[in-house]
C-alpha cells in the first residue's frame, strides 16, 4: 500500500498524483519527448493519425501530439507562475491585515472587496485589451486578480490563529512581526493554504485556457491547450477528434488536481480533531 505523510493514500488521490506527475514530466521534457518542433508545418492540414503523427496534424499541418506536449509546458507553467505569485501577494497581504488590525486591515479589506465586486473575466479583458497580451502582463494581471481570494483565506486563518495563546506568548515575549508571522502563524496555516493552492491552480489553469480560447491569452504560434481548442473547434463538424485532445488534457489535469486537493483537505480536517 502506498503511504505518504504516514497516511494511506486513497485510490483517487493516487490517480490524481499520477496524472499530475505525468503532466509535469511532459511539460518539463517537451522538447526532448516531442517528435516535432511545436510550430513546424510537417504535412497536410488535418492529416489523419498514423505511425509518424500519433494524433494527426492540425489546421496548418503541425503535429498535434507535439503541440500538446509544448502546450502542457505553456499552460501548466503559466498557471503555476500565476498561482505562486497570487499566493505570495495574497498571503503577505492577508497576514498583514490580520496582524496590523485597525486601519491597515480596513483599508486592505475594503480594497479587496472592491476588486471582488467586479467580474474577474471582464476585468481581465479590460486590462489585457489596454495593456496588450504580453505573457508578463498576463501573469501579473491574473495573479493580482486571484490574490484577492487568497487574501481572504489568509486573513481569516491568521485572525483565528492569532487569537491563540501561543501567539500571545510570542508577542508578550517581545517577538517582532516577522517572527510571529513566519514561525507562529504560517506553519499552522500551511495545510489549508496548500489545499487552496491546488484549487486555485486549477482555476488559474482554466482561466488561462478560457482567455486563450478568446484570443487574449497565449499568442500564436506558441501552443497552449486553450488556444488549441479554439483553433480546432471548427473540425468538430467533420468528425475529427482533434479538438478533444487538448480539451481532454484540460479536463484530465483539472480532475487530477482536484482528487489530490480533496485528499489534502480530508487530511487537514482529520488533523484538526487531534487536539480534542
Amino acid at each position, binding site marked *: 500500500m502506498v503511504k505518504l505523510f504516514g497516511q494511506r493514500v486513497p485510490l483517487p488521490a493516487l490517480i490524481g498524483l499520477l496524472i499530475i506527475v505525468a503532466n509535469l514530466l511532459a511539460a518539463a521534457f517537451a522538447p526532448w519527448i516531442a517528435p516535432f518542433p511545436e510550430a513546424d508545418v510537417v504535412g497536410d492540414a488535418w492529416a489523419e493519425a498514423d505511425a509518424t503523427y500519433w494524433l494527426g496534424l492540425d489546421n496548418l499541418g503541425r503535429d498535434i501530439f507535439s503541440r500538446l506536449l509544448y502546450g502542457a509546458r505553456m499552460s501548466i507553467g503559466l498557471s503555476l507562475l500565476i498561482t505562486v505569485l497570487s499566493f505570495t501577494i495574497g498571503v503577505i497581504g492577508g497576514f498583514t491585515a490580520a496582524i496590523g488590525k485597525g486601519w491597515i486591515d480596513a483599508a486592505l479589506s475594503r480594497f479587496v472587496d472592491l476588486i471582488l465586486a467586479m467580474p474577474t473575466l471582464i476585468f481581465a479583458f479590460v486590462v489585457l485589451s489596454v495593456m496588450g497580451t504580453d505573457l508578463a502582463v498576463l501573469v501579473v494581471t491574473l495573479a493580482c486578480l486571484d490574490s484577492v481570494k487568497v487574501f481572504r483565506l489568509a486573513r481569516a486563518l491568521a485572525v483565528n490563529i492569532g487569537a491563540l*495563546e*501561543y501567539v500571545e506568548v510570542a508577542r508578550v515575549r*517581545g517577538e517582532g512581526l516577522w517572527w510571529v508571522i513566519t514561525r507562529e502563524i504560517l*506553519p499552522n496555516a500551511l495545510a489549508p493554504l496548500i489545499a487552496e493552492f491546488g484549487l486555485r491552480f486549477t482555476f488559474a489553469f482554466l482561466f488561462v485556457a478560457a482567455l486563450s480560447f478568446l484570443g487574449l491569452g497565449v499568442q500564436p504560434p506558441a501552443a497552449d491547450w486553450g488556444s488549441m481548442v479554439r483553433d480546432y473547434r471548427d473540425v468538430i463538424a467533420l468528425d475529427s477528434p482533434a479538438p478533444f485532445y487538448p480539451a481532454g488534457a484540460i479536463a484530465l489535469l483539472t480532475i487530477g488536481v482536484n482528487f489530490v486537493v480533496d485528499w489534502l483537505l480530508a487530511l487537514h480536517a482529520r488533523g484538526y480533531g*487531534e487536539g480534542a
Partner: protein
Amino acid sequence: MTERTKGDLVLDVSQLRIEVRTDAGPGPVLVDDVSFTLRRGEVLGLIGESGAGKSTIGLAVLGYTRANCFITGGSLRFHGRDIRTMSAAERRALRGPGVAYIAQSAAASFNPAHTILQQVCEIPIQQGLLSPAAARSRAIGLFRELDLPNPEQFGDRYPHQVSGGQLQRAMAAMAMAARPDILIFDEPTTALDVTTQVEVLASFRKLIREHGTSAIYITHDLAVVAQIADEIMVLRQGRMVEHGTADAILHHPQQDYTRRLVAERFEAHGHHAQDSGALLELRHVVASYASLLRVVNDVSLRIQRGDTLAVVGESGSGKSSLARVIMGLLPREAGDIRFRDEMLASRLKDRTREQLRRVQMIYQSPDVALNPNQTLLQIIGRPVQFYFRRSRAEVRARVLELLAMMDLPADYIDRKPGALSGGQKQRVGIARALAAEPDLIICDEVTSALDQLVGEEILKLLKRLQEELGIAYLFITHDLGTVKRIANKVAVMLKGEMVDGGETEAVFAPPYHPYTQLLLSSVPEMRSDWLDGVLAGRAG
C-alpha cells in the same frame, strides 16, 4: 446520609465491556468488566479521572455509544430486560420514561430557538404520556421543586435568558418530565461556579429524594459526589478500582488509588516568604474593554519576592483581565503598576525587553498555549535564545536542564506537543516560563483543565520551584481549596473590584468578609453531611 428503604432492582449491569472499533481494526478497551446494580431510590456515584470510562458507562445505560464504540460484552438489564438486545424502537421508548440524561453543558444541550417550556414538555408529549396541558403543569411543578424563580413564567424564557445554574436545573426538569426510573447526571455542576454549584446540588438532591428516582452521578470531584451518592464506584482506565458505600469510600478506602484521591484535599503546605520590599505593586488600577465594559476597577495590591498571591473570584469577576493588565495586553486607563521600583508602561509595546522577561505567564489550557508545529527544543529554547542570546549548543543544554527540572525525559526535546499528555504539556508551559528566568510568574487557572491528581503534581512542582528559585506567583483560580494550600496572600475579586484581601490566614479566618464567607462555605468538603450543614447554616 439518612437511611432510606431501598426498593426493588431497577438496573443490573454485569461484566460490561465497551471497545473502540474502527476500519483500521480494534482500538482501546474503554470499559472492562464493570458490574453494579441500582435499586429504586438509590444513587450511585461514578468517579474517576478523564478517560476512566465514566461517561461511556452512563451513555451505555441509555442504550447509546459514541461513534466507533461498541458494547462487546456483558449485559445491562433494565427491569430484567437487556438493553443490548432491545430494538431501536424499544430503546427510543426507554429514553425519557425509562432513563434520562443530564449533561455537563446545559447551554449546549438546549435548542436556543425554542423556549425552555417547549423543550421540557417535548418528551412526555412526543411519547404520548401526557396531554400538552398536563405536561405544562408538570413542568411548572418541577420548576417549583427545583427552586427556580417565578415557576409559572420561567418556562416562557429562552435558554440564553437564564443563568447557567438555572439552565442546569431546567435540564434536570427536562430529564424528570417523563418521570424516568433512572437519571444519569454527567458532571452536571463542573461548569458552574462554586456558589452556584451548592444551590444546584441541593436542588438535584431534593428532586431525586422526593420522587424516589434512582440515579447515576458521574463526576471527577469526590467531595461533590459525597453529598449526593449512597454508593460510590471508583473507576480508572475503564476498570473498577473500588466500590462501596459513600462513607466507606471516604473514610476507609481500601485501594491505594482511592486513598490518594481522598487524601489530596487534606494535604497542607507550610509557607513563608521573606520580606524584601515590593516586587510588583498595583495602585488604583482601572481597565475596560473597548472603554465600555469596566473589568478592573480600582484594584491595588502588592507582591513581594517569594510570595504567592492568589486572586480568587467567580467567572466574570475580572481575575484574568487583571492578569492581562499586568502583562500589558489590556492597557490600563488609570493607576500605576510598579515592578522592581520601575513604572511599567501601560502597553506591551512600550515595555523594555528586560521588563518583559521578568514577568512570565502560564496558561489554563496547554493545548492552545504551545505551538503544535514546534518541538520542545524550539518552544523552550526560544526564550533562552531571545533574552540571553546564547549559542545553539548552550540553548540545547539549557533546555535539557529545564526538562530535567520538570521531570520530563530528555529525549522529549525533539517531540512536538501533540505527542504529550495534558500534564506533560503544562510542564512544558512552565519550562518555557522558567527559561526566561523571571521574577514573577502569572498562573492563570493552570490546573483547572487537568485531572485532580495531575493538577496536584503541577502544584507541587510550582511549589518546589518557588523554594529553589524564589519566584513569586500571581495565582488566578476559582478553586479555594488550592488557594489555602499554596498561597500566602489572597485577593478576592467581585465584579472587577477587590472586595477582600490580605494574608491567607487572616482572610480565611473569622471575621470574614461576607462574600469571602459565601465563597468559602461553597467549597464542597469531603464528608457526606457537608451540604446539609451549609443549607442549614444559610437557612438560619
